[in-house]
């Protein structure tokens, strides 16, 4: 098992954790609050995750207000689950003295 370099970056890890927990479309503003990122920073990380096929980004209007909603994909959920399993393996390896 290997670390997922795309997901492991701090902000992207928080984005994926939030979306994985929500398991539904999440608005940009809420994702910004959860990840602690700025607008530009969050947009950039979402582009990376979208490029990897881990999230989908939808833009529409509610009345006259623009709205951006982000959803985790099936591939994103699987990649996130694998990365979390890898992190747990690293910790368990350390606790049993198998860390390499």
């Amino acid at each position, binding site marked *: 098992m290997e670390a997922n370099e795309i997901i492991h970056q701090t902000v992207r890890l928080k984005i994926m954790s939030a979306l994985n927990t929500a398991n539904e479309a999440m608005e940009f503003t809420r994702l910004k609050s959860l990840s602690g990122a700025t607008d530009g920073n969050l947009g950039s990380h979402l582009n990376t995750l979208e490029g990897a096929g881990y999230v989908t980004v939808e833009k529409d209007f509610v009345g006259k207000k623009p709205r951006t909603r982000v959803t985790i994909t099936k591939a994103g959920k699987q990649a996130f689950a694998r990365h979390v399993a890898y992190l*747990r393996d690293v*910790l368990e*390896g350390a606790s049993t003295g198998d860390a390499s």
Partner: protein
Amino acid sequence: MTISPDQAAAALKDIETVAARSNDLKSYAIGAPILIMWGIICMMGYGAGAISPAYGVVWFPLSAIGAAATFFLARRAKRGADGRIGSRIGWTWGALIVFYVAAFAVLRPTEPNQFAAFPALLVALSYALMGIWTSRRYIVLGIAVAAFTLVGYFALAPFFSLWMAVVMGGGLVLGGLWLKQV
């Protein structure tokens, strides 16, 4: 890419923190409209009681409308991934209403202020319990509702209904808006 055990532990902690906060926000998004709706119902019900205790009967249709609307709002959340939390909120309110009717049938209060204070204390208890088991902001709401109710009941008895219409009703609306602000 190699990740050290310390980095892995820090990453897992970040994941847990964000997941817990994400659940909190989800719960607040479901609870906020329900809270605002009950705030408006309290304003109408207690407001009617403040005009005349005889108008207290408006609580029967208001409670029925509130219960139905609560189930509707909870079911609407159930259509999304919020189903577990949404249905819990719906069933919690349903259980409270059944308990409220049963407790009145057994205890048979005689004072109008007792009729008015009891459901408010019940709501306070339910929010405190929700806060203890799920999201912390509900604890603050529970304490505020209980405090306003007890202050009004013991210190402002002649104006209790008016107090509850303004402070309790307004407080629940503000509480709902507060939950939406996160």
